């Protein structure tokens, strides 16, 4: 790191920052695009189909269809960028970025590995160093911004189906946000802080000390709400092929569409990173008290990918809820449950347990 910094005539801190940003964002981008393929192959396997397996590099190297990513990307890139009549042009262009950027930004505070010391410097493996004063509040706030991506896309398309999808999705996101935040608050309480590094350190390396075990209810609530937040089935009200054509992205095509699709997957990655950090001990390796840096990164990655897979898995298990059922679940089940969770933990803490 020091040699790299001196080569670039910058301070090690700055060089490290740049390296981190590049690594994290390219990794999330890559994972998100790989996950589009995982989703398609996984859903195919779940439904006893085969899925995209024929795309090949140079027509020869088939690598179980992974070239599909490239093919899709290239296809979207070279497609005509249609802009329907009477769209609100500026918002129409802005919406994919509004969807994509918050999805990526949420990742910034999440530690993806152990800190390490080299040459007298402490290097933190998260884009924003711990102690930045925002902590876990930041991804929550940024996650709330994701509503704008969907809603702006829906509004600017000047399409009735799109706006219906957008309205439904934003209603879902807003109503599940409260339950989700309350579930997180009880973690803040038991940890005594809201910095992700603190939360991870408090969970330790024993799997039964991770937050899932003492706060199982909180986990269920949070995980359910995250599905609504990321607009995934069973709560993907932004879409709905059978009801409202394609939903909020009806009018989108080419690269803008692919950006919207990618935003969903980036969101999924961020959401599973949140779940891992809050409830599954982040980069902690089970039963290893002081893991090496590489091991901790690997552990984080494995957990992250597992939860990303659970997103896919649940999507192909459950049918879409009806709108009123979802509202019912959000307000009458998730919110009270997370409140109960909060009160119970507050009571337990007040009795010194």
């Amino acid at each position, binding site marked *: 790191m020091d040699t790299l910094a001196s080569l670039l005539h910058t301070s090690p801190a700055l060089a490290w920052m740049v390296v981190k940003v590049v690594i994290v964002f390219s990794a999330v981008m890559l994972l998100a695009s790989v996950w589009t393929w995982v989703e398609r192959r*996984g859903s*195919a*396997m*779940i*439904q*006893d*189909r*085969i899925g995209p397996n024929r795309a090949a590099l140079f027509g020869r190297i088939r690598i179980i269809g992974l070239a599909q990513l490239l093919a899709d990307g290239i296809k979207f890139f070279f497609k005509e960028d249609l802009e329907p009549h009477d769209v609100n042009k500026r918002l129409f262009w802005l919406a994919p970025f509004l969807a994509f950027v918050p999805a990526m930004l949420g990742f910034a505070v999440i530690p993806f590995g152990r800190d390490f010391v080299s040459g007298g410097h402490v290097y933190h493996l998260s884009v924003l160093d711990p102690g930045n004063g925002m902590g876990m509040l930041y991804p929550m706030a940024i996650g709330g911004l994701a509503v704008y991506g969907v809603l702006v896309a829906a509004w600017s398309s000047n399409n009735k189906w799109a706006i219906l999808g957008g309205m439904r999705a934003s209603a879902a996101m807003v109503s599940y946000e409260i339950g989700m935040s309350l579930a997180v608050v009880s973690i803040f309480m038991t940890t005594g802080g809201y910095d992700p590094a603190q939360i991870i350190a408090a969970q330790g390396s024993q799997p039964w000390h991770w937050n899932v075990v003492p706060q199982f209810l909180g986990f*269920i609530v949070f995980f359910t709400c995250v599905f609504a937040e990321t607009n995934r089935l069973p709560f993907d009200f932004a879409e709905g092929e059978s009801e409202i054509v394609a939903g909020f992205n009806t009018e989108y095509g080419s690269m803008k569409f692919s950006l919207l699709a990618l935003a969903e997957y980036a969101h999924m990655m961020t959401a599973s990173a949140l779940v891992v950090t809050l409830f599954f001990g982040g980069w902690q390796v089970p039963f290893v008290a002081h893991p090496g840096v590489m091991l901790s990164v690997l552990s984080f990655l494995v957990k992250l990918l597992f939860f990303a897979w659970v997103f896919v*898995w*649940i999507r*192909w*298990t*459950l049918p879409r809820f009806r709108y009123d059922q979802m509202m019912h679940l959000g307000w009458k089940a998730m919110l009270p449950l997370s409140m109960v969770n909060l009160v119970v933990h507050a009571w337990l803490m007040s009795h010194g347990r």
Partner: protein
Amino acid sequence: MGVVVKKVELGWLDRTYVWPVLKGMGITFNHFIKQLFTPTSKRYTIQYPDMKKEMPTGYRGLHELKRFEDGAIKCVACFMCAEACPARCISIEAEEFSDLNFTQGFEEKRPKVFKIDMLRCIYCGMCEEACPKDAIWLRNDYEVAAYDRLSMQFGKWDLMNTYAEADGKARISEDPTPSVPRRVLAM
């Protein structure tokens, strides 16, 4: 008539919604694992250009005009198939041939032109049913496609050779006996 709909009573475990979800996830995971470890040849999906479906006997695919061992066509140009064809896609022109016509005094008939318009054919198998000589069969080849309309007009020799390779027979392109011009004999 009214139908009494029985409402399913859910137990408390089912009403939590968490347990049924887990059960469902178990089912999907089973399918996932099963499909993942099934070899490609045993999956439900047939990977078409690489693998082909075995057609059952009695499948009505591409036609074949049958031939005798010496390569003579079995068809006697009786026009029954053309008559029976609901799509009206068979057109036949007859001709006469015989080795015997001078010794025994009669000719036999065979098609000079036997054309099936595969674009109009509906593969109903009526021609096969109608044929008194079992000369036309619909067999199991379903890959009938071409780049232009003209190559979908299957002629006599195309139809005689459609299954030549599959049956290990030689391709033929001419009749073993020449046709004779219509006899104009002064009786």
